[in-house]
């Protein structure tokens, strides 16, 4: 019901300069593995593995600088950014709706869930020509691919989340006079929030993967195309520069999602269900 003995750290957290130092130290510890990785990469490239396959961090940084200062990358960024946002939003919206409906109705679930799983298992990459026919080679086919990937993850998480809601709380709220809309808003969504948030976080990288796979299949502009072209024009630094930009997307989105999650799920860390270091 209450926190396990964290009071002892209150003192240090409150203490002016010491606290700032501690915060800095924490960040350092966080960055350490990344820095170590970078150093190893720099060392290994050209030694353990040829530079044309993995480039070097320094070369990647130089290439990044070049791309941004020449402005060459912006149109790609702009297209891919649009695709990502659209794909993600559409996928999440669809996933939440479908997951919620099937989660609420076990009859619908029994009928449709196996089909959803089956469609989910179709390797979309095998259907590339179909995607082109249906959605064109522009931003449409990438948005479609990304939103399908996002949809499945969000769908399954929302579905599981809704099904895991405590039936007694639902019944009580119904007795109190809730209609379906109110029930959704006051009980199901908050109760399923941990699953929903998990689905939305898992979906972030998958929207990226979907867009990139889409751009690898056909495209006129976009980061995926840029990476592909860099790869076929013997520019490994360009490939990794593209990947770094994608990682930037993912990391920023993840940070935002983390912040939203912490806000929405504040009640959980207060209660007994937070992380345990035991």
């Amino acid at each position, binding site marked *: 019901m209450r926190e396990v003995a964290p009071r002892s750290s209150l003192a240090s957290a409150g203490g002016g300069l010491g606290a700032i130092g501690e915060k800095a130290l924490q960040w350092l510890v966080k960055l350490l593995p990344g820095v170590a990785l970078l150093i190893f990469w720099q060392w290994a490239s050209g030694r353990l593995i040829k530079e044309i396959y993995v480039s070097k961090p320094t070369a990647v940084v130089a290439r990044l600088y070049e791309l941004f200062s020449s402005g060459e990358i912006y149109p790609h960024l702009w297209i891919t950014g649009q695709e990502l946002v659209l794909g993600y939003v559409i996928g999440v919206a669809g996933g939440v709706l479908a997951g919620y409906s099937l989660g609420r109705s076990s009859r619908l679930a029994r009928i449709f869930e196996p089909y959803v799983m089956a469609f989910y298992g179709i390797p979309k990459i095998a259907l*590339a020509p179909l995607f*082109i026919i249906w959605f064109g080679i522009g931003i449409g086919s990438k948005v479609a691919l990304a939103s399908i990937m996002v949809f499945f993850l969000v769908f399954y998480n929302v579905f599981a989340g809704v099904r895991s809601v405590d039936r007694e709380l639902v019944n009580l709220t119904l007795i109190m006079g809730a209609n379906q809309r109110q029930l959704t808003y006051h009980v199901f969504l908050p109760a399923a929030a941990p699953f929903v948030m998990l689905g939305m976080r898992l979906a972030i990288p998958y929207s990226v993967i979907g867009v990139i796979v889409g751009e690898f299949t*056909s*495209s006129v502009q976009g980061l995926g195309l840029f990476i592909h*072209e*860099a790869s*076929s024009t*013997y520019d490994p630094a360009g490939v990794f520069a593209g990947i770094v930009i994608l990682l930037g997307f993912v990391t920023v989105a993840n940070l935002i999602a983390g912040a939203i999650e912490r806000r929405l799920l504040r009640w959980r860390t207060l209660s007994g269900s937070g992380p345990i270091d035991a």
Partner: protein
Amino acid sequence: AQQAVRIGLGAPTLSFLPIWSGRALDTFKPQGLTATVAALPGGDASALAALDAGDIDLAAVGPDSMLRAVAKGQPFEIVYSLMSKVTLQLVVSKDFLERAGVKPTDPMPKRLAALKGATFGATALAGAQEAAARWLAAQGGLDPKNDIKVAQVGSPIAIQAALEAKRIDAFVLSPPEGFLAERAGTGVVLVSMGDEFPLLAKQPYLVLVAKKPISPASSELIQKTVNAMQAASAAVLDKPAEVAEAIQKQFFAKADPQAIASAVKSMSSGVAERGRIDVEGMKNALTFNKEVGNNFGKEFDAAATKDDLWTNSFVDAAKAK
């Protein structure tokens, strides 16, 4: 005003030489065109699907996949031959060369017979590369089905990696891959197919395909594109070094300039026909396809399909001007 033409490319490799040259020198501009090149790494099937869907005006593909599609009833027509010789090169790893005990200077049958037991890498199975590999094996007196193995290995860069990591013994790709392997010291060009086999020296190897029926408007667009391609081809023939430099600067900035230069030089003879297809070349292409065992499910006749499957009308019109 500038008119836009959209060309779909199954793989952004250097072998589509006139397109690179055209873009590097911008031979489109004098025609009042702006060219957009859509990359369709999904392969020729994707490029043709995009053509079918109207997302692109012209698809740059190999004739084999085009013939397959037509055999299935797709309304496509070859309007220009980008490359009129097979530019593929057989590249084998140094290791394999030593094991097999052959040199690039050995007579052809000996070189090819040495391929027994080799594993080839190809960017896609059932494509031109696999066909060429098996055809070469047959030329060397081997059983093309069982004496060599062909594996699908994604992209050219992945194939290079596979060769270096000794996952494969050989590959069949267009320049500059062979030169790059030689410079990296991982492989040796054993056979330059288009230069060493007469059958392969004269046949449409990469073509521009349009969707029928061709309306007057698109006919005009195709005509202008063909004009631009011819100008680009002429430039390649006239001053290969400068064109190579332009291509390298603009599109292959990070690649080895010398490899690009060698590649352009070695492939330049392929654009000599300026896009013209003749019955003999078409025949050669069909023969080659038959020899490599491509079964389209339909017999094509080289001469009879003129102006249906393929046409010189745009090339001829360009010359007339």
